[in-house]
């Protein structure tokens, strides 16, 4: 039989050792998979992991991909610390994109410095609303937020699809399910001469700083942490679980919605049926890769963004299906969870006596 036993002593650096081991195992496993497909692992890995970053264009693309991952990852890290499992960031992102995009389209052709803030606000409110639903159901009926937020994701995706097929469709767009292209005043500026890296990345960094500050200095952040660690101590301290649930899901929803509208206005430039390659779900991996530390979300987000680029590069230069991105990310999450178990536990083989 195999036994899993609690470790007697743990050290803070064990966590980061575990992260490093998980990353190494991911690369090793990916090499084995590549070899099994008849490709030479080292040069293949070099082609998909290193070469995409060899140009301004590549870095700019990396930043574009990392932007939503970091933004959402920070918000999820805060919520997960509080023991609120918001799995539906993807849906909140989509609602943010949809609502923000709708605001932008409503003011289409209107110039003014206030248009962009209004669009961003619309998007954040859309996500906030989507996060409020699981919060309300949890507080009122004790409904599981994992299930509710997850299922609402599919509702949001379908809603976006309905809208771009119907009311928000470009009147001159030959019936394609796409909105008009957003005008200049509702578009975020690019950061580089090449690629799609845009101002949203600066916002993402800002969120990471804000999140760090919140964890360290803001009492509400402390309250959430205590609630996540021990409900009965929280009760004794006079902290309310309901407030934590609301805060975690409203922050998660609002920030994911913001990430959604930033993606639409900074990257895509119009509403389309599919505005996110699962950034909202991937951000869960990012949050855990960062061990729920808001600052660590930045490198974690960049690293996972690289896996998207690697997937694209694999498709283009190695002829492997694009789904390899998901295999990559799946491996990473698998090894992360596996090794994080080993931070606190160890495995022993033996017999029952």
């Amino acid at each position, binding site marked *: 039989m195999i*036994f899993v*036993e*609690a470790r*007697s*002593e743990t050290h803070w650096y064990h966590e980061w050792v575990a992260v490093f081991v998980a990353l190494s195992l991911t690369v090793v496993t990916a090499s084995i998979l590549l070899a099994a497909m008849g490709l030479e692992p080292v040069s293949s890995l070099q082609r998909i992991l290193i070469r995409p970053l060899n140009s301004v264009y590549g870095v700019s693309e990396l930043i574009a991909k990392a932007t939503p991952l970091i933004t959402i990852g920070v918000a999820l890290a805060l919520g997960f610390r509080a023991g609120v499992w918001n799995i539906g960031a993807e849906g909140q992102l989509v609602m943010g994109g949809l609502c923000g995009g709708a605001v932008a389209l409503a003011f289409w052709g209107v110039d003014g410095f206030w248009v962009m803030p209004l669009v961003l606000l619309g998007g954040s409110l859309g996500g906030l609303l989507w996060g409020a639903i699981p919060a309300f159901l949890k507080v009122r009926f004790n409904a599981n937020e994992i299930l509710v937020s997850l299922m609402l994701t599919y509702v949001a995706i379908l809603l976006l699809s309905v809208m771009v097929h119907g009311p928000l469709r470009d009147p001159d767009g030959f019936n394609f399910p796409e909105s008009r292209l957003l005008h200049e005043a509702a578009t975020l500026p690019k950061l580089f001469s090449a690629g799609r890296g845009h101002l949203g990345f600066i916002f993402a960094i800002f969120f990471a700083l804000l999140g760090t500050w919140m964890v*360290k*200095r*803001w*009492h*509400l952040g*402390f309250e959430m*942490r*205590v609630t996540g*660690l*021990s409900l*009965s*101590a929280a*009760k*004794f*301290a*006079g902290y309310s679980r309901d407030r934590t649930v609301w805060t975690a899901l409203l922050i998660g929803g609002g920030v994911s919605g913001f990430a959604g509208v930033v993606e639409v206005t900074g990257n895509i430039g119009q509403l389309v049926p599919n505005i996110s390659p699962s950034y909202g779900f991937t951000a869960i991996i990012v949050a855990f890769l960062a061990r729920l530390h808001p600052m660590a979300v930045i490198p974690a987000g960049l690293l996972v963004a690289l896996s998207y680029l690697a997937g694209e590069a694999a498709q283009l230069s190695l002829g492997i299906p694009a789904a390899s991105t998901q295999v990559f990310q799946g491996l990473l999450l698998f090894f992360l969870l596996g090794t994080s178990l080993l931070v606190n536990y160890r495995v*022993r083989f033996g017999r*029952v*006596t």
Partner: protein
Amino acid sequence: MTDSVANKKRLSASSKRCIGVRGLTKYFGDFAANSAVDLSVDEGEIHALLGENGAGKSTLVKMMYGILKPDSGDMDLSSEPYSPDSPSHAKRAGVGMVFQHFAVFDALTVLENIALGLEGKFPGAELAAEISELCERYRLHVELDRRVHDLGAGERQRVEIIRALMQDPRLLILDEPTSVLTPQETEQLFATLGRLSDEGRSIIYISHKLDEVRALCDRATLMRAGRIIDVVDPRQESTRSLGEKMIGERLKETKRGKIKKSSNGKARLTVRVGEVYPESSRSVALRDLYLSVAPGSILGISGVSGNGQDRLFDVLSGEITLPNPDSIMLDDLPIGHMGVEQRRALGMLGAPENRLGHAAVPDLTLWENIILTARHTRGILTNKHLISGPAARRFADEVIQTFDVRTSSVNAKASSLSGGNLQKFLIGRELLGRPKVFIVSNPTWGVDAKAQLFIHKMLIQMADAGASIVLISQDIDELLSISDRICAVCHGRLSRTYPTVETTPDYLGALMLGQEVDS
């Protein structure tokens, strides 16, 4: 030197050694929690481990049980080298342990909790029958299908004892097992331990209750600051001499001096509640909750653990709010509907029985734990929303200094403190807030003799300064020595209140069993 002492005091040369420990050393960072500790326990011996809070007793037995790895030194068990690398290894080798802090799962039933401690057992009827048989044999009463969540401290302790006994250990380690037991329960436990020792099993017994140690144990090892200082025969010592040897200084008794007769004193806190319904069918309903405490007086509430003390504490602290504001009055202010934070702002502070997980968060540092209840004082929260780390650290440091809490620094995790030191810290956290009303549950549970006196002195000082204190406790001596008036809670029902001078231990015992005697 310690060796020679140990040899001199050996009981009889003929008895065989069960466990032996030589030169065991354990550092936490730079701090030596154990240095070169030698200990030997014979088969069938009941061996006491004594020492003040933080002396390193728990650390020593945790190494024997494979929870901590010694930095150096070695052990043998039944003449074979023994170096457990995990509790399950220790269990297989025949070492059982009952922890100072509960190690049970709240959400599971008693049966499931016991099954979890046993490898390869399933919580079915077969196991239930085995457990019932064992309980019968050692006269330990528990209801197997109750959730641990709904049990009082004494009952939880019993679950742990049963779980350890189920493994049929040859060495049983008990870390302050009786701190929460009633005298009757303690007596039963002693009978059980006596039987175990007759069967040839050895017992290591850690306790701060020196009279118990004298009644029960064959030998006692005294520890101070991580070292063995003496091995004595507790039967040859008085409780006092034992305490003084252990602490290394003389002890003075605390007694509530002249009680200020508050004849015209209006009650500070008045509670009038007919009934508080339980949240689940398994927890205890509170009935006939009528009590009042005058400024400057200490009301003692005695009772066998699990009779509703937890809920009583919650009702008073505000963790359970009542629909009718008038049911609790603070001076002339109705506060029954107010939550914890509001009541705390009015000067009602409390320290619950369960330290880790209720009064404090184990994984947070001491200064962070300060924020839990003291955040509205001393500028710990600036602008109501921002935490000032330096202010919280200063307060934590003040508590540590004032209450002589032994710890590495304010950055130590609450879980790393020894039981008694954590308790001093948590009581200190509230007392420095100068409460008007202080509600405290089992304040000296697991606290060494010196600290016990200190906490009692602090409580009395608070009362003399005009605070009203509600002392919920299972320690009859404590209640009789420091409270002005006493009542008891039994099956959730509160008895009438009597002046302490008119009660005796026997009378109190009857009250605790719900037998109201009319005078």
